[in-house]
């Protein structure tokens, strides 16, 4: 009952939940495609690159979110480009952007002492501090992701099923992958305010992994992933508020529990059925 009263009373809690719902939906929809395309770690890479972008923004006195967004988008497009040209493996390219982002951030922290507090707030995040502008940014990111998934659904499923088959059918795989990379960068930037740079990839990957253990179809996987993500963000935020614990940690801990639960459920079902599921 007190949670409902708090929700009605505190506007920051309302903003947190609204922004959190938008972030949860964004990450679950994109994350499912990324996991199935073996790009699970791209969120991690972009988040670390965003760390460097934030540091540059704070150092130069420009809005850090803007600088982080530009750096994240450029970095994600670069990864997509070099992987498409088969110059390096995707995981190796992601390792490079993680190193680039972190080293840039660390150098700037060393050069300009004094802004570490600002930067560390992004490292760990807090959804309870979302402002009105942040919420609008989250909703804008959700709108972009929703339009992308709705208009490109058939092509995305085909690319995920077999990329060569999609190319033979005239699907512009490079353009769609680039759009996916840019949207992932946007989602990472808004999600890092909620769970922090260090945990943002969990929000992309874990809902999809949970859903894949128990889903019955592609559409069911997307639906389950969004439900799991939504529940973990809403429940995690309210738990964090009630028990005064870090929000990002609470959300991701719930997702890890959900993953353990779905994995266990799959094993039970497989044992009962006598076959691999």
């Amino acid at each position: 009952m007190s949670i409902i009263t708090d929700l009605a009373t505190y506007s920051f809690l309302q903003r947190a939940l609204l922004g959190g719902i938008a972030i949860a939906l964004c990450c679950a929809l994109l994350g499912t495609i990324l996991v199935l395309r073996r790009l699970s770690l791209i969120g991690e890479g972009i988040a670390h690159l965003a760390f460097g972008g934030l540091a540059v923004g704070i150092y130069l006195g420009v809005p850090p979110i803007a600088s982080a967004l530009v750096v994240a988008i450029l970095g994600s497009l670069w990864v997509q480009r070099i992987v498409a040209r088969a110059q390096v493996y995707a995981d190796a390219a992601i390792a490079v952007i993680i190193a680039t982002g972190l080293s840039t951030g660390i150098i700037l922290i060393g050069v300009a002492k004094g802004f570490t507090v600002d930067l560390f707030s992004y490292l760990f995040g807090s959804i309870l501090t979302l402002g009105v502008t942040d919420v609008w940014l989250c909703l804008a990111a959700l709108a972009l992701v929703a339009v992308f998934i709705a208009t490109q659904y058939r092509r995305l499923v085909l690319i995920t099923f077999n990329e060569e088959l999609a190319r033979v059918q005239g699907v512009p795989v490079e353009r769609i992958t680039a759009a996916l990379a840019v949207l992932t960068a946007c989602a990472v930037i808004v999600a890092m305010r909620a769970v922090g740079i260090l945990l943002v990839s969990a929000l992309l990957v874990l809902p999809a992994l949970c859903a894949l253990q128990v889903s019955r179809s592609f559409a069911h996987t997307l639906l389950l992933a969004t439900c799991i993500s939504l529940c973990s963000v809403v429940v995690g935020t309210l738990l964090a508020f009630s028990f005064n614990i870090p929000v990002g940690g609470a959300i991701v801990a719930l997702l890890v529990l959900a993953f353990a639960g779905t994995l266990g459920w799959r094993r039970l079902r497989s044992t009962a059925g006598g076959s691999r599921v």
Partner: protein
Amino acid sequence: MAKATGKGGAALAFSHVSFSYGEQRVLDDVSFEIPEGEYVAVIGPNGAGKTTLIKLALGLLSPDTGAIEVLGTPRERFSDFGAIAYIPQQYSVDRNFPGTVEEILSLQKGENPASVASSLDIKPYLRKKFSELSGGQQQRVLIALALLRKPRLLVCDEPEAGVDAKGQHKFYALLRRLNESGITIIVVSHDIGVVEKNVRRVLCINRSVCYFGKSTDTRTLLRKAYGEAFGHVHHH
């Protein structure tokens, strides 16, 4: 240029095509022409350039030099994607793909999915996940997906992989029926025994040499391309 007589224009024509992966030359000045309406197997051992040849034909790779024509149109200008269907190797499909057969068939606009599913005997598992099917069942789903496009040219990459002998027999019988209905069929294979029994013609490839002939002459063509020893091996 290796060429077979046929009833129409060329379904696929390579003219002095060369391709390298980095420093390694895989195809060297290869020329051939497959007429429309043919039922051809591209044969040769691993590393002969079979899959590269098919990827070039499908536009998945671009040649270093030379020209490729598909259904009478230069490959780089080809845009009638509905006219070509491709059946990839089952192993190239992600084993964790969560989609059902029904979802996969719905990816393709064209022929009525229900009638194609019915003709290929896959109706009973439309609601099943693709990853839960046997090799033969998965192959039938991939064929159904290809047929929904009502193609003029059907390209299959190593259809024997992961399918038992009975499944292979059914598959090649289906290909023969499709060919008789007017579809040009190109099958990549390294199984000489299966090829001899099933297809009409073979394109035997060895990097820079290309021989085109009747499937009954497969071993002779292979000996010409690879030397005396080859006609006696690779019978699966």
